[in-house]
């Protein structure tokens, strides 16, 4: 009995242990890794993936998936950049609406939430499988981005906006503050609210949840909206860091975020997993990326190594859940 308890305790911390071992290994091989500059650099880089992955975790917990996050990120970043730079003009009735920094960002977030809600709507109203519905949105949002930007980057967005991606607050990079706030809210939602309960229940047994009086469609709609909005948060951060909204931003980000979710121990069939697990997963991927660069590993090999880590994580997770 005691032995099994120890083993489950160990399983709980295994991604943390893996992360520590990984850091020690890289630090041993490269003296640039454990410097303050590099640490902040890594954390700044993973902030975007953390925001997206937190939303992805909520979706995956309901046994769904959101493939559109990368494109939604690009579109919302472009919306914010475009509105900030040139507002909206209606030549027909001589109307011009300018946007403040806050207004432009809010618009970006709202658009993200709306695209997410659209995902949720097609999934619940027409019973389109999440994989297909969000795959469609992946293409739609990418197309909208190209339409909105006319295929060109929107750059030179001003110092105030750049502060979000590159600035510091109380000695800590602003993106780290933002992702910390996102993590904290998501932990509270999953652990302390009825919505969180419903997310786990739906992923665990959708039909039983429905018979228990849970409004499945509403919960899913909310979850996909949150995922869309968090993709927009990521989009704003990316755009700000580069001081430019790139039409091809965020390509294949959905894969990194699914990888973070999976490495973090969330079951792709839903109902099992935690936000903190995903955060650890995102950090592991970030540290790995950074370490491989510092160690001068060829970019081609980096991809192979990353794929191997994802496989390994899932295999270990499977072996653990078998022992339960």
């Amino acid at each position: 009995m005691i032995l099994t308890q120890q083993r489950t305790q160990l399983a709980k911390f295994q991604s943390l242990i893996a992360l520590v071992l990984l850091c020690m290994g890289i630090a041993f091989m490269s003296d640039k890794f454990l410097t303050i500059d590099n640490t902040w650099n890594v954390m700044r880089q993973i902030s975007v993936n953390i925001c997206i992955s937190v939303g992805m975790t909520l979706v995956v917990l309901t046994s769904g998936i959101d493939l559109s996050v990368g494109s939604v990120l690009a579109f919302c970043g472009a919306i914010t950049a475009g509105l900030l730079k040139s507002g909206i003009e209606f030549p027909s009735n001589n109307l011009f609406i300018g946007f403040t920094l806050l207004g432009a960002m809010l618009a970006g977030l709202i658009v993200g939430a709306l695209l997410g809600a659209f995902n949720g709507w097609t999934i619940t109203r027409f019973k389109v499988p999440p994989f297909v519905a969000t795959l469609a949105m992946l293409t739609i949002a990418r197309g909208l981005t190209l339409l909105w930007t006319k295929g060109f980057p929107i750059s030179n967005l001003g110092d105030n906006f750049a502060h979000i991606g590159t600035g510091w607050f109380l000695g800590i990079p602003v993106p780290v503050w933002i992702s910390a706030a996102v993590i904290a809210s998501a932990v509270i939602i999953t652990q302390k609210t009825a919505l969180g309960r419903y997310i786990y229940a739906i992923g665990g047994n959708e039909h039983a949840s429905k018979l228990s009086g849970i409004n499945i469609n509403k919960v899913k709609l909310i979850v996909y909206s949150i995922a869309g909005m968090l993709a927009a948060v990521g989009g704003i951060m990316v755009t700000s860091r580069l001081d430019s909204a790139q039409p091809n931003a965020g390509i294949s980000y959905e894969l990194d975020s699914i990888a973070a979710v999976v490495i973090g121990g969330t079951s792709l069939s839903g109902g099992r997993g935690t936000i903190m697990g995903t955060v650890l997963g995102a950090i592991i991927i970030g540290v790995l990326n950074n370490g491989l660069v510092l160690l001068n590993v060829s970019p081609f090999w980096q991809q192979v190594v990353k794929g191997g880590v994802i496989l390994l994580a899932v295999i270990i997770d499977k072996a653990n859940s078998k022992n339960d």
Partner: protein
Amino acid sequence: MLVAENICKRFSGITALENVNLTLTAGKVTAIIGENGAGKSTLMKILSGVYEDYEGNIVFKGNTVRFKNTREAQKAGIAIIHQELNLVPHLSITENLFLGRELINSWAMLDKKAMRLRTEELLEKLKLSVSPDTLITDLKVGQQQVVEIAKALLYDAEVIIMDEPTSAISESEVDVLFENIANLKNQSKAIVYISHKLNELFKIADHYTVLRDGKTIESGDMQAMTHDMLIHKMVGRDIEIIRNTNASITKNTLLKVDELCLNKLGNEQKQLLKNICFELYSGEILGIFGLMGAGRTELMETLLGMHPNLSNATITLNNQPVKYKSAAEAIKAGMALVPEDRKKDGLVLGLDVKTNISLSSINKMQDTWLINNKTELDLAHKYIKALKIKTPSEKQTVKNLSGGNQQKIVIAKCLATQPKVLMLDEPTRGIDINAKNEIYKLIAELAASGLGIIMVSSELPEIMAVADRILVMADGTITATFNANEATEDNILKAAIADIN
């Protein structure tokens, strides 16, 4: 034909079987009897090759055997028909029968003709008059079971294990099953029959082996046994079915259902439920009996608002007309349903006891945004105590509890919504006699507290013992109503098979 001697099996220190002995004879049906957790499933898993590491010997047709996996056991001639059938829904009967051992012709292609022919023979032998090309999903559960038996015959199985074969089929299908078993006996197959329904065992079994707490209690001839003696051996003490005293019935109409109809999805012409009208008094236990396909479960689901676009009804609750379009609204109005299949529809198996109990009422336990942990914990403790749910703690994952305790958790979840009407669909299916009696007692107590109870059951003795009034359904409509004192097995069954056309 098969002798198992001194079988012991331990799971991480816990003894599941201890010196169990079992003898199977060709051409005889051996009943394995025991409460849930007595070790029946473990023993069957050892016989059918699921577990390889056990102590003791199995001698099959004179040779000591130890199967490494189920395939080996199958090859040797031991087939098991699980409670949950193992068929691929979207393949045909033929394709299912030959799955994994397809016949190949000289062109290295599937020999469809030969396989179809063999299937036809088997189906004929088992008196199932459907085409071998029928998809499994288009068959009734009873027919699917026949396909499983055909599969066992195709393997030339000599030992056929049937685990709760009648739990999902109707009375008429049971007759067909028993006929098939009689035929198998004539072909000198040895049959292991596991069931909680003792009446069936007396009809079908020749020998019995009683297991209790992982030990063999006794084996012998069925003929020498009586119902009470068997129960005594199973639980080690006498058990009585609690007879409801009718004391709690009032004359206050709690629920009135008028002209309830339900259309079949995608087929407006076909009505699954037709003009159902009934009343339920507060404090009353209303039993609903019907054979498989009579529409009992559909009625329960419709009353819980699960088919808003297909159904039509005038429902009055506490003299107030109510309209609801979803389960959420029905629960708010005061309805609650303990569904037929607790694992599929009642519980989130991967979550813990507390979370499952509070699932339907958690929205009322929030301080503005956040869940009040103490309120929730108190609720869980209250019901664990009140319903005597046996669990190490409220944090135990529901998956690990026994069927009876799982059922109590579903009931707790429903009660936590403070319903006025509690509907229970087959509340004692697949749970042992002790737990059954506890559930009967609970139902009587709840009725006494003023709840209106609707209990669907396909077991006649159960419904006659528990219900104050019995509605009988056939073909989507109510064919008869009996008060408890005028109900007999005969007149209930007659109403249930009444041909209304």
